[in-house]
């Protein structure tokens, strides 16, 4: 994937799961790198379609705002994305972003368990206690990756 496509991808993914003052988002969890890895690996067959989609999105930004998608405001980026949210390339990026935010960190996404901590998922907890299955109390963080647990 060329540099400009990579930048577009990062910008899009950053709006799908945006970070804000309250909590980190896709960028902080390393999602852009994860998505790129998937498109070069497990989902290589989809890469061309995604890149084409990103370029058309960029073209739409230039038509509407005279600058690249990367350089328009977050609000305008959201408008441009809303216009393509039923396109297959958008769906692909959304699915991969969710994967990248919440997967086991050994796959490159969810860096340092950032995504898991945001949603309150306790990580790898193979033997939760009775207490930890009650409603109400956050159960605390278990293992960060399956590689740390012995089965």
């Amino acid at each position: 994937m060329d540099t400009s496509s990579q930048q577009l991808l990062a910008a899009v993914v950053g709006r799908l799961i945006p970070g804000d003052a309250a909590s980190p988002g896709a960028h902080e969890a390393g999602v852009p790198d994860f998505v790129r890895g998937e498109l070069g690996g497990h989902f290589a067959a989809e890469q061309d379609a995604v890149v084409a989609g990103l370029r058309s999105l960029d073209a739409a930004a230039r038509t509407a705002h005279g600058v690249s998608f990367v350089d328009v405001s977050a609000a305008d980026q959201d408008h441009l994305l809303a216009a393509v949210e039923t396109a297959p390339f958008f769906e692909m990026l959304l699915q991969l972003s969710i994967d990248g935010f919440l997967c086991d960190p050994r796959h490159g996404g969810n860096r340092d368990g950032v995504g898991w901590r945001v949603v309150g998922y306790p990580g790898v907890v193979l033997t939760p206690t009775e207490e930890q299955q009650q409603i109400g109390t956050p159960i605390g963080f278990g293992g960060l990756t399956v590689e740390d647990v012995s089965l």
Partner: protein
Amino acid sequence: MSGYDVVVVGLGAAGTIATRRLAESGLRVLALEAGGSYASTDFLPDQLLNQRRGALTSGKTAAEMPTVRRDVANVAVRPPFGGLTMNAVGGTKIHSGNGHLRLPPWQFRSRSNLLERYGEQVLPPEISLADWPVTFDDVVPFYDELELVHGVSGEPGPERFVGPRTQPYPNPPLRRSGYNELMTAAASRLGWTPFATPAAIRSRPYGGRGACTYCGQCVFNGCYADAKGVLRIEDVLGSRGSVEVRTHARVTRVLTGSDGTATGVEIVADGSTTTETVRARAVMLAAYTYENVRLLHLSAGGDHPSGLGNSTDQLGRHFSTHAFGFAFGSFGGREMNTWTGSMSQAVSVEEFNADHVDHTDLGFVGGGSLLAMMEKLTMLMARQPPPSAGRWGEGYKRWLAEDFRSMAHVHFWADEMPHRDGRLDLDPTHVDPTGTPVLRITKPLLENDARSFAYLAEQGHAWLREAGASETWSSPYHPFDISPHAFGGARMGDDPATNVTDSWQRLHDAANVYVLGGATWPSSTGTNPTPTIEALAMRSAGHLVEELS
């Protein structure tokens, strides 16, 4: 004569339990499995690997996925997502949730029961529902034995929904979580009769096998703790030395003699292109619904040019599946702690299954199970935000951060009715990587099934609201043509003119060929299928032993 008494095709849920029964007889048995075999330590609790990438389900079964169309005027296409069944000793049960409910007695004569209660007009001509040729009482001894084999955990449910029981479950129910308790209380307030979902998961060590630790990576994954009731090679060999198991060997057709009965099977070992012939006095097909029916079609020849068991043009008819759905509730800001556990660590509500509620004014027949379950799989459920949050962007992110933890769910599945014009046959153009035609599904949709699904979803919403959910929503109806709950195609019934198999699941056309699994079911029922698949397989194996002795 050289060869075997019995060859079993496929060592999944049905094939393993049948082989185990055959092993007691001392008959010479060869059990063939297309996949390999796993140890508990092979199963990593890694959702990207298991659920998203289908680590366990991307083998033969994915490569030969059937094509689908709604009616004969259209060309069938390959659906975009996989079927979730798998290839290995233990079969799809390895990564199943292993909920373990018996069929309610009502289901065994659903057609007659409906006509008696509501009159002839209740079933439109296109719904080809039929009574089963076996009764609840025929199956009970095998249900009983099966629970002991697997060490099923549970508590007796309400008898009018789950039938009478004469023995306790060998293990107590899986642990009750906070969410389980909340939903039990809510169901009781609604006047329902909730009970702990019985599961082929051991709640304590049993028979030298492990107990559940509530690891939260149960479905789509095998059990690292060896707590699931899944049989392994050593469990099916018996003590008489008469059973051989061969993995990585796929059956490509059933061979028949001049009288039309089976003489054995043709197999291809992994990595080989040449076929081998295995001779046997009887064949038990246990390769799951789609492959069982496909193999019968592929075994055309001699006096059965249009497929084995198809002399009356019935092979492939009356196909149906379950429509899976979820209802979700947001419990405003509370930590629900449903991340861990098993999906079978659940509360069952059976009020809306079968014909337990009066359908007079409902506009549909049938129903299904509702379960309030643990094991909120993060990556799967993060794809199910409430409509108010949006699917992406700032609203979605806020939901992820603040409310995803407060979401809990009810799972349900509606029984589809078999359709008169539905059919499973061989696809004229699509082939699997070996060049063999894949199965083609023709399945018209029924308004009945969409209504039944919507009704169950409504009950899910009501249940969650009663439990305190401030917002509820649900997944949309869509049919699951490629399903791990697939039924019909080799319907069992006494009349050979309208059925492929008899009450022993044996071909009417070839008395030494048995079909084990959902393919023989005359109706999809609204209940988890595996215990009944297994019980019927045990019953058939017992029958075959008598036939051959």
